[in-house]
Structures are given as C-alpha cells and as structure tokens.
C-alpha cells in the first residue's frame, strides 16, 4: 500500500504543515515549539502554515492552536482517533497529505511522533529527517534539515531534493515556544477521511499515568542535577537526588551512566536522550562528550564538577569546581542545608566552621 515511484512535479506541493500532538485537552510542548519554527519557515517560503489535528471533539483546541501562529488548522474528529494509534493516524495523514500536497511537514519527535513519522514516510515513500536541531532554506528552495550525526561529533545537512513532502522531526526543547496571541485569527478546516473499524487493530487496554510524585521531569525543571560516569555506582545517584531536592530540581544522567545500567534511559540527557534548557544545569562527574552537550548547551547557567581539569565540559561552563565529586557534592548539600536552615535565610546563620 505505497505510492508508486513516479514523482510528481515539486511545484504542486506548497505549504508548511505541523502535526499537532495533543494530550489531556492541551497541545504537547513540542508541537507548540514547532509552530514557532514552522511560522518562520512558512514566511521564508511565502506559504501558509497549517496545523493538523486529529482527535475526537478537538475543535476548541484547534481554535486555540491558531493563537501560536498558525494560519489554519485542519481538524479531523472521529472516535477512532480519540487516542493516538499508529495505523489509523498514519492512514489519515497519508490521505490528507495526498489530498493537500504540503511541501513541508514537521513532527515533534515524541514517542508517538516518531511512531507516526516512521510509518508514514514509508507509506508516502518520501524523506524524513529525524531529530533535527535547525532548519534553513537552501538556494533551490529545499528545506535544509540539520541534525547531529556520527555520535554528535558532526552536524549533517539532509536534503530531500526530489520527493515531496519533505518531512522532519524535532525533539522537545530544541526550539522555544512562541507566545500565544488569543486574538490571532485563522481558519479551522474540518475534514473527513474514510475510516473503518477494521482500521483499529490495536487496543489500549491499560494506562498508568506517571504522577508528579514519580519525580520532577528534567525537561520541566528549572534546575537539573545531572550525573555521569564519574559517579561510579547507581547508589551515588541518591546523593544527587538529595542535592536536586534541596535546589528544587530534577536529576538526570549522561549516556554513559545510562549505558552502565545505573539509571533508566528516560533520565538521559543528550543527543539521543532529552534536550533540557533549565536555568541551572549542574553536571557532576560528566566529562562532556559532544552528544551530551547537544542536550544541555542551551541551559542558562552551566556548572561543572569534575576531578579532571581538562574535562571538555569545562569549556562551556559558566562556573566549575575542579575536585572530587564525592567531597564536593556532600559539601554542597551541607552548605545548602545550613543556608536554608537559618529561619530568615540570612547568611549570618551559617556557623563559623562552614566558612
């Protein structure tokens, strides 16, 4: 069930689309961030920016989405589309794309976004560049899709010269969310697509939502305390958690710590993990492989604690301590507790021995 490989004239394809992923009556952060970048690209191409929203009873959400910078939103309402499911969503998107012929389609590289993009690009037999960090328009009007490669040591420029649409996915927090303008006007375009019950082949039988008690997510935290290979042991992450709690932040980890099995992958910051942009990123025992940098280099303030003065991460640090993390981190905890312990928070409350 794939398109033939006779390529249609590129000029028939116009417009920039953003696939809008939603949950719990709201848009996902990454979709909102993509509207901002999509707006910039649409303006460069002098084209319309369209959001695509699939769901059940999502008209209000569609209207709201326009406020981020969309010109219009195509909406499909159908009970089958109430939650994300690979096959029906891919079939609907394929039909819409064949019908409207957008030039560019952007997806958030969330789990579902990658699930969808991967399936769709094979059905449409067109190019999809994953985890892009930047876009440009080249001299011929192609979308220049820039993504890290070779383990993050390089940036590759991907072009999809002959096939349309050009598709790309982007991770959360690579772009910044645009402001919301409730007065912005745009078109909500309801459409229908042929869907049969047989298109539903997978059922969601259970769902356990993660609660906030499960720990603050690094992508949402203002402070991130991140541990690397230098920690040496999964137990030492407890120390980082204590520090994070004192700072009101979340813990995260480098790829090496994840690969060593000390922490789950969902805590990984880096090119193949999360991108975070907290106010404070505290890197403990992380040397600073390029892939890691990609995930945190936009943090407002970067603090590096490492025993090796030559650790690459020091080069992008705002502050750093060269020292043994097993002495420095407990000392930080101690001093923070002392600072907090004073009822007024006054510095004079710190006992003389701490100085």
């Amino acid at each position, binding site marked *: 069930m794939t398109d033939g490989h006779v390529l249609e004239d590129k000029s028939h394809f116009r417009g920039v689309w953003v696939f809008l992923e939603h949950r719990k009556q709201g848009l996902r952060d990454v979709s909102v961030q993509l509207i901002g970048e999509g707006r910039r690209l649409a303006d460069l191409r002098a084209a319309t920016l369209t959001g695509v929203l699939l769901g059940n009873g999502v008209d209000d959400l569609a209207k709201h989405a326009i406020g981020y910078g969309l010109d219009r939103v195509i909406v499909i309402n159908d009970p089958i589309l109430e939650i994300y499911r690979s096959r029906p969503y891919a079939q609907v998107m394929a039909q819409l794309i064949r019908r409207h012929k957008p030039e560019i389609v952007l997806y958030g590289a969330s789990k579902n976004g990658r699930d969808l993009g991967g399936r769709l690009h094979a059905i449409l037999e067109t190019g999809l560049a994953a985890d892009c960090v930047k876009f440009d328009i080249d001299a011929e009007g192609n979308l220049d899709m820039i993504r890290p490669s070779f383990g993050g040591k390089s940036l590759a420029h991907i072009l999809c010269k002959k096939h349309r649409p050009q598709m790309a996915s982007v991770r959360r927090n690579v772009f910044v969310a645009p402001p919301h303008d409730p007065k912005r006007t745009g078109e909500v375009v309801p459409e229908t697509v042929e869907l049969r019950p047989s298109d539903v082949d997978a059922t969601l039988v259970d769902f*356990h939502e*993660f609660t906030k008690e499960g720990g603050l997510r690094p992508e949402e935290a203002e402070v991130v305390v991140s541990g690397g290979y230098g920690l040496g042991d999964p137990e030492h992450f407890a120390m980082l958690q204590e520090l994070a709690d004192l700072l009101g932040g979340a813990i995260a980890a480098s790829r090496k710590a994840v690969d060593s099995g000390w922490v789950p992958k*969902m805590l990984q910051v880096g090119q193949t993990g999360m991108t975070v942009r907290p106010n404070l990123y505290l890197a403990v025992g992380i040397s600073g492989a390029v892939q890691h940098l990609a995930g945190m280099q936009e943090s407002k303030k970067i603090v590096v604690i490492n025993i090796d003065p030559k650790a690459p991460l020091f080069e992008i640090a705002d502050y750093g301590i060269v020292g043994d993390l097993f002495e420095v981190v407990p000392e930080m905890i101690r001093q923070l507790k002392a600072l907090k312990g004073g009822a007024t928070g006054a510095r004079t409350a710190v006992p003389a021995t701490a100085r």
Partner: protein
Amino acid sequence: MWPGGLGFGKPFTRPAFPQWDRESVERFDAIVVGAGPAGSAAALTLARKGFSTLLVERGRAPGVKGMFGGRIYAWPLVDLLPEWAKDCPVERFVVRENLAFLTEDASLTVSFDSPKLAQGRGTSFTALRSKFDAWLAKKAQDAGAMLVTGIRVDDLWREGGRVRGVSVAPNDHVAADLVVLAEGAASTLVRKAGLKADMEPREVSVGIKETVELPPETIQDRFGLGEREGAAFVYAGYASMGLRGGGFLYTNKASVSLGLVVSSEDLSRKKIEVQDLQTKFRMHPAVQRLLRGGKVVEYSAHLVPELGAGMMPHLSADGVLVVGDAAGFLINNGYTFRGVDLAIASGVAAGEAAEAARTAGGMTKANLAAYEKFLRARNVLTDLERFRRAPLYMKNERLFEVYPRMLMEIAERMYTVDGSGKERLFDVVLDEASAAKVPKLKMLLDLLQGARSM
C-alpha cells in the same frame, strides 16, 4: 522513585531457560579445553586420528590469554608438522645463549655462540603467543577439529558418576567421551575433576613480562645479530633482588621480551610488588644498555606452576586427560625456561593415549593410563623427573644472592688492573669465599647439588 516503577539498581535475575531439546545436545568424541600450545597439539593429534574434536578457547582468539617467557624449543614441532618452518610465525631463531649474573651495578655475562643452536631438532626460536597459538590452532582446524572461541568452560559434565562432557551453564552442555584439560596454570577444571589439590604458595611462582619495542635494525646492531637471528638471556642474582627466581630476555623481530619468574612465597614474605621488581630489573645498566630508547608496550603477569615431578597432579581419570601447564609440565632449572615444547609434546601424547584407549575399548582411567607411557617416550616425564631437584635447588637462597655476588667480586678483582699488584685467581676465589662467610663444605655441596640437577 522512578515513574512507572522502572526500578533501576535492582539486581538482575536470569529467567530459567528450559533445555530446548535434549536430543539436540551437541556431541564430539573429544573436547579439548584451552587452545594454547598443549590444547591445539592435542586437538590436532586427535583430529588426525579420526576423533571428532572440539577445541574450546575462553579468549576471543587463541593466544590472547597465553603468557610465556618468549622462546619455544622446536623439537616437538619437527615431528608433528614437518613443514612447520614454512609458515610458523617465528620471530627470530636463537643463535646465541647468554647467562648473566648481576649485582646492583655490575654484570658478568657468559655467552655461547654456535650455528648448531639453530639447526635440526635443537632449534629454538622466539615467538609471540598471539601469533603462534593462532597458527597452531589453525593447524588443528585444518586437520578437522572445530574451534570455538569466547567460551569459558565452567565444569565437567558428570552424570551417573561418569564424565559425559563439559558444561558451560546449567543448560549448555556438550557431550564427549574424552575431555582433555589444557587450560593452563590457573586451571580450575583440574581441581574440579579432583585431580589436584589446591596449590600452595610454595608451589607457585609469578611470571612477569614486558614487551619493549625496538626497531629491528637496533636489535640486530646491539645484539650483534643477523636479520632472522635472535639471542636469549638468563639473569641470576640481583635481577630478582635476592628473591628466588631469575630473569630472562628474548629478542623478537621488533621488540624484546624482558621478564622475571620469582617465587610468590618470597614476594609475599618480603612484601615486594612484582611490578617494582620488574622496573628495577629493566633499569639495571646491563639491561638498559641493550634496551635504551625502547618503549614498553605490553605488560603481563601470570602464574607459573613450579611443581617438581614429585608434586604433579594425577594426569588421567575416567574420560579425562591433563596436558601442558595445567599438568605442571614446566622446567625452570636456573639456566633455562621450558614450557611450550613440553606442552606440545604432552598434547601429542594425550592424542596417542586416546587412540590407545579407543583400541582398548573406551576412555576409562585404566586405558588412559597409557598417557604416562607416551609422555615418557617423548621425554616429557623423564626431563621433569631429572630436574625434579631443580625446584628444591631453586629454593636454595644462596644461589640467588651470595654466589652471584661472590662471582662478581671475583670478576672485579680479576679484571681490575690498577697497579696495586695482581693476585692469582685461585687465591682470589678462596679469599672471596671466606668473605662470603659460607663454609667451604657447604659451598662444595651446593656445587655438587647444582651440578647434579643440571
């Protein structure tokens, strides 16, 4: 703590895997554990004699885990592989043998040169184990043995009181009528087979070796060698800082193997780190003269079994034979180190014993006892027994400190011509003997004992 209860840090528990299909247990006539020289020689011999043979090596390639001084005596290869010299990865053929005595800053070296050293059955050559072991294992494969690497055999597979093969994991067994243990000095299977009591420190030495890189031309210049020629050194005295043992040096093509074999009991008694010992040895002026400018590129340490013939393990049991270092087939008599040749010869003997047992009706302990006969025929046991005094002799501390020092003093007095009046050699010797405070009778006995064991 983590969303979704991902539970990091919990210990991993393997699920129980059922034996998928009992009928599909692989089987061979013989399994050889360890693809070092002993194992490969055994596998080669067995394969040639029509045994379906599996050769299992725990390293990712044969030779990756092996360690030796650096020189191989070629005589067992001459019979096993008449064309051996055509493609064997020889570093250099040894044409010069040296015996050196060291004190802190002086050395006395006796050098023996002879073209006969590199001819015929007496040939010896320096080698690198990674290349040599791989070559010999390939010969075993060419003869029909199957080689599997990267697997560590954990135990013998026993059922109903009989050895049925080998076991790697509860559900990973391979069946065989005969298992040949060629695991090397740190063999665990020999112990598990009940064939050897745990080694006491007295029985074990530590071998340590560094590979020092030098350009071939430099080696040839400094050692006075031709392109394919090599030299071998044995060092006594200061090299081991009074510990029982000795040093060695072998020239490879583009590197030199330098190392020590010392009593592990002495090491722990005197609380010396073996790396420090090696460094001191390497920094001795006599050694530095030869190795100056070289780069240490490799370092290894290994156990060396020092069992005299009186302390050897039993070599065979029902369905089991032991070969090579695992059987303690090593000679260290003070002026020579031999292990690889004995290993190869014992591997061949094991193959012959298996053939004899097959003819006699099965791999029983009684039938496999023929192994001893074949070892004797190849002078493996004979040589070991002859040198059985060597370990005891090697434990004579005077050999390592007092006598070398005495010799050096004698040499110094002999060679110093400073106008203070030349003495006669005989007087010098007597004088130094008194100075060394060793009763003349004891010296005589030591001399006799040493002569007998050599």
